[in-house]
Structures are given as structure tokens and as C-alpha cells.
């Protein structure tokens, strides 16, 4: 049973299966997202309170859940890399960071665009958006630390450690931001919580969530191939990979 897992540690194997999985993941993701967009934008009924502005959740919620999930995945891959010294795990951690950061940015912008009609300002220090902003700083810290080292191996390990330290702090940061927010503003007029959505609104949301997740997997496979290649330039299998 363990051979399957053990083979995941071998770069040429990962390089090949990543190429095989990517088109499928992206294909299904594309279909789900297209459906989610059409259904969410055109057919789902308006929210009685927010009107059509609520449709922004169809991109905001998937992006925000992905941003946190991506950071956690990065930390797990980093831990596997540090503990078992598996190069592929470092490649995964390096591949995840920019994708996660892009979704965090998407969350922030869509969140503030959604905030404007609700609170009248683009940035009202909503606790969840503030946590996302700090998450973006954490992403940026990990990426710039990895880039600061000439020796990629050492850069991977340093960034891995920072990712682990970061993931431990994410809940602490979130809690303290929520606590801080509750002190100063009392309950915000309209918390940016998910409005109670009935089935017809929920279906496109689940489609978008799954679509974004599969999309994330597909792009991760593509980016992983590059990262694996960067870390295996000396290996013999790279010769065939470059020729093909």
C-alpha cells in the first residue's frame, strides 16, 4: 500500500502524473465555474437584503476559503519537506504560495467591492477582511524569504519553517482581530457573514467552491512541474523531460 505514497516522493514520477492530472482537473473546474457563473449571476434569486450585490459571494467565498486552505497546504507540505527532507514537498510548498497569494488578493478586492454598497466605504476594517490582509502579508513574507536565498535548498527550508510558524499564528491573528473588532465597533451593522441562502442560491456557490478547488489543484500541478524541474536540474531524467 505504501508504495503509492512512496512514489510521490520521486520527482520524475510526480513530474509525469502532474502533467496527466492537470488537464482533467482544469477541465472539470472550468465546467463547474462556467455553470456556477451562469446560474449564480442570472438565475439565482436576489437576496432580500443585499439585492444583487450578494452575487459577489460566488467569487468572494470560494477565493477566501481557498486562500486559507492554500496556506495550510503550504505549511503541511513544508512540514513534510523539513521532517522527511523530501524535495518534492518543498516544490509543492513553493508552487502553492503564489496561487494562494493571488486568491488572497482576489478575496480582499472582492471583499472591499462588496463592502462599498454595504457600508459605504471600500475598507471598514471588517475582522475577516483584516485577517485576510494579514494572511497576504504572511504569504508575501514566505515568498520573499525563499527568494532571498541564493541556494534554493536553504531558501526552501527557511521558507518552510516560516510557513509553519505562520500557520500556527493564523488562528491567533484571526481571534485577536475579531476580538479587537468587537471592542471598537460593536457588531458591525451588517456582518460580512454569509447571508442565509436557500437552495437555489447555494447550488451555484457549491459549484464555484468545487470549481475553484479543482482549478487550484490543476494550476498547482502545472506550477509544480516547473518547481520540480528547478530542483532537479542535475538529475538524469531531466534530459528526457527537456527533450520531450
Amino acid at each position: 500500500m505504501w508504495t503509492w505514497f512512496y512514489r510521490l516522493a520521486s520527482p520524475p514520477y510526480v513530474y509525469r502524473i502532474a502533467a496527466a492530472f492537470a488537464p482533467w482537473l482544469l477541465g472539470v473546474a472550468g465546467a463547474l465555474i462556467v455553470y456556477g457563473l451562469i446560474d449564480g449571476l442570472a438565475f439565482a434569486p436576489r437576496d432580500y437584503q443585499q439585492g444583487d450585490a450578494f452575487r459577489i459571494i460566488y467569487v468572494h467565498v470560494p477565493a477566501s476559503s481557498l486562500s486559507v486552505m492554500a496556506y495550510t497546504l503550504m505549511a503541511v507540505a513544508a512540514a513534510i519537506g523539513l521532517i522527511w527532507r523530501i524535495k518534492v514537498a518543498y516544490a509543492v510548498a513553493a508552487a502553492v504560495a503564489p496561487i494562494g497569494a493571488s486568491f488572497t488578493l482576489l478575496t480582499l478586492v472582492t471583499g472591499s467591492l462588496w463592502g462599498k454598497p454595504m457600508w459605504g466605504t471600500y475598507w471598514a476594517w471588517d475582522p475577516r477582511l483584516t485577517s485576510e490582509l494579514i494572511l497576504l502579508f504572511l504569504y508575501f513574507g514566505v515568498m520573499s524569504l525563499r527568494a532571498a536565498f541564493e541556494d534554493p535548498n536553504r531558501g526552501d527550508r527557511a521558507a518552510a519553517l516560516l510557513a509553519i510558524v505562520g500557520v500556527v499564528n493564523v488562528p491567533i491573528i484571526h481571534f485577536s482581530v475579531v476580538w479587537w473588532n468587537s471592542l471598537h465597533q460593536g457588531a458591525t451593522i451588517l456582518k460580512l457573514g454569509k447571508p442565509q441562502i436557500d437552495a437555489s442560491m447555494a447550488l451555484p456557490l457549491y459549484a464555484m467552491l468545487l470549481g475553484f478547488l479543482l482549478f487550484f489543484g490543476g494550476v498547482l500541478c502545472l506550477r509544480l512541474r516547473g518547481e520540480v524541474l528547478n530542483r532537479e536540474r542535475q538529475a538524469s531524467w531531466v534530459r528526457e523531460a527537456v527533450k520531450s
Partner: protein
Amino acid sequence: MSAHSKRLDVDQVHVFRGDRHVLQGVSLKLEAGEIVHVRGPNGTGKTTLLRVASGLLRPEQGSVRWGGRAIGEVRAEYQAALAYASHEPALKSDLTGLENLRFTVGLKRSVADAELREALEQAGVAGCADLPVRVLSAGQRRRVTMARILAMRAALWLLDEPFTNLDTVGGQLLTQMLDEHLRQGGSALVVAHQAVTLKASVRPLDLAA
């Protein structure tokens, strides 16, 4: 003065620095009372080999064993038996010679100042004991490092270019120190680009380009 050494085994060590394959399957055995002189042009990984042997640098492949056991398992014992002198004399320039010894040798074993002064005396830099290292010459700093190695009473000496900045008297002093260390059952791994001539037989290890 030096403790009796155990066997040091460096076995098929490979180290990469970025894309460069710095050490390619280097092996060496060092018994008590033996000295190996690591030679080779610049950039062939002499210092890297020393850092791997000391446990500072973990090799990609290969192992380092002390008394038959991997140095990772016997880290405290191995470090207690080890005296490592890097290419640069590792001294704090704001501290005096004596203080430098007190804060390095003192971490390994409880040692009185008098004993440290005696080691400085042996290295011929007794006068520098109370001067900040900042004001010392490169040769004097090298001798303070030699005093540190003497005071540590280590079994295994790992010395990186120990003859640099030493005048002829200093060179002779170091040669005597090495002979005495080997006679007492100590062992030494020395990186030097010039010849190492001792009473004891010196086994060369050439690192190819």
C-alpha cells in the same frame, strides 16, 4: 593534556552547493594518534569536508561516525571531544583574549582563569590576555585560537588553515602542539595549502578538482 581519541569515519560523503557537486564521495578514516592533511586547490571542498566532519554541515549523502556511532546520535559527546578552528579566528573583537577563552572553553568544561592564562602563555600570547582582541595582530589572534584549542583538551582537532598569519616561531609552536597532541592519543584533521611536517607521519588526502 589532550584526551584519548576515538575512531572518526567519514564515509562516501556527497555535498552540493547549489548546482556544484562540491564533495563527491569523499571518505576517510582517522584513528587515535593519527593526523590527515587535506590538500587540494581552492574550491575543491576542503573547508566543506571539515564542516561536514565537525557536524556543522549535514551531507546530502554519506555519514560521519565517531567511535562507530553516527555523530548525530552522540552529538554532546562528540562535540565535547572536538576542537574546531575555522579559517577565520573566531574571536569577539570587543572581548579580551581571556574573556574569549572563558566564554568558549568555559562552555565545554568548567575551567579556571588561571588555566586559561597558562594556555595563553603556552601559545606565547600571555600579554594579550587582558587586551581586547580588536587591537591584536592577525598572528596574535591566531595564537589566541591556538590557546583556545589547547585549553579545550579535545581529543579530535579539526583545523582549517591553522598556519595562516603565523610567523616561523608560531609555526614551530603549532607543530610542537600537534606532535604533543598526537603523542597523547589525540587525532587531527588539518586543512592547509602548505606542507605539514611533523615528527609523526602525516597521511595526505588529496581532493581532486
